[in-house]
């Protein structure tokens, strides 16, 4: 556990980092970024809390098993979304321009962008984002646990 200054700044910054990470994931089809980048940002937020509060406090907040479940959900839904377009090909963008979820017609040319376009790409973005944030988060947690065990006993 680090000093009170670090913990206070972490309390202020943590929510902003999470919101920014989920924003990057959500707007992956409009702005620079996407699933991998947003997931890495969220995982860096987890690493910040882990360093500020130490492993003993954090292990009650973030469970490694929950992160494993989240990662599996991300992987399975990524392949699942890819398989949903199997009527045409694997990884076919079946939702694009369909009028349903994320299916608004595309505006061609230079435009600010519509969040409700791009078909299956935002779903894949979310799947990969969940996978990356859970994967990197569990790597950080495991390494912190290993350091603690290696130092202490």
């Amino acid at each position, binding site marked *: 556990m680090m000093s009170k200054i670090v913990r206070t700044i972490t309390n202020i910054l943590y929510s902003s980092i999470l919101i920014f990470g989920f924003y990057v994931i959500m707007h*992956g*089809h*409009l702005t620079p970024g996407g699933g991998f980048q947003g997931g890495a940002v969220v995982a860096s937020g987890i690493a910040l809390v882990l360093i500020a509060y130490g492993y003993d406090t954090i292990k009650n907040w973030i469970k490694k098993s929950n992160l494993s479940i989240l990662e599996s959900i991300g992987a399975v839904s990524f392949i699942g979304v890819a398989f949903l377009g199997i009527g045409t090909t694997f990884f076919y*963008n079946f939702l694009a321009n369909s009028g349903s979820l994320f299916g608004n017609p595309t505006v*061609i040319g230079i435009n600010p962008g519509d969040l409700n376009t791009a078909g299956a790409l935002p779903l894949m973005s979310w799947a*990969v984002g969940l996978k990356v944030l859970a994967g990197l988060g*569990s790597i950080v947690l495991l*390494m912190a646990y290993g350091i603690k*065990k*290696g130092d202490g006993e």
Partner: protein
Amino acid sequence: MKNYIAFGALLVVSGFFLLSAINMHSFGSPSEEDMDRYFIENAQEEASTNNVVTSIVFDYRGFDTLGEATVLFTAVVGVSLLFRRLIK
């Protein structure tokens, strides 16, 4: 005998590397200009995204992204296995 096999393998690999170095395009010129043009002109219409990079990563080269996800999964499994001894 083993040394000869290793030397032969080294020759083959370095030969392929040399071949690719000789056939490399000069700096700055794209190797597949038609493909770049196609992505830039059609990505917005086909993948229905404003971000061409995302349309390539998740649509045109989706299989590649699946491989990347597998790499990350393998990394997590490897770290878990590495620290399994400490947990027990």
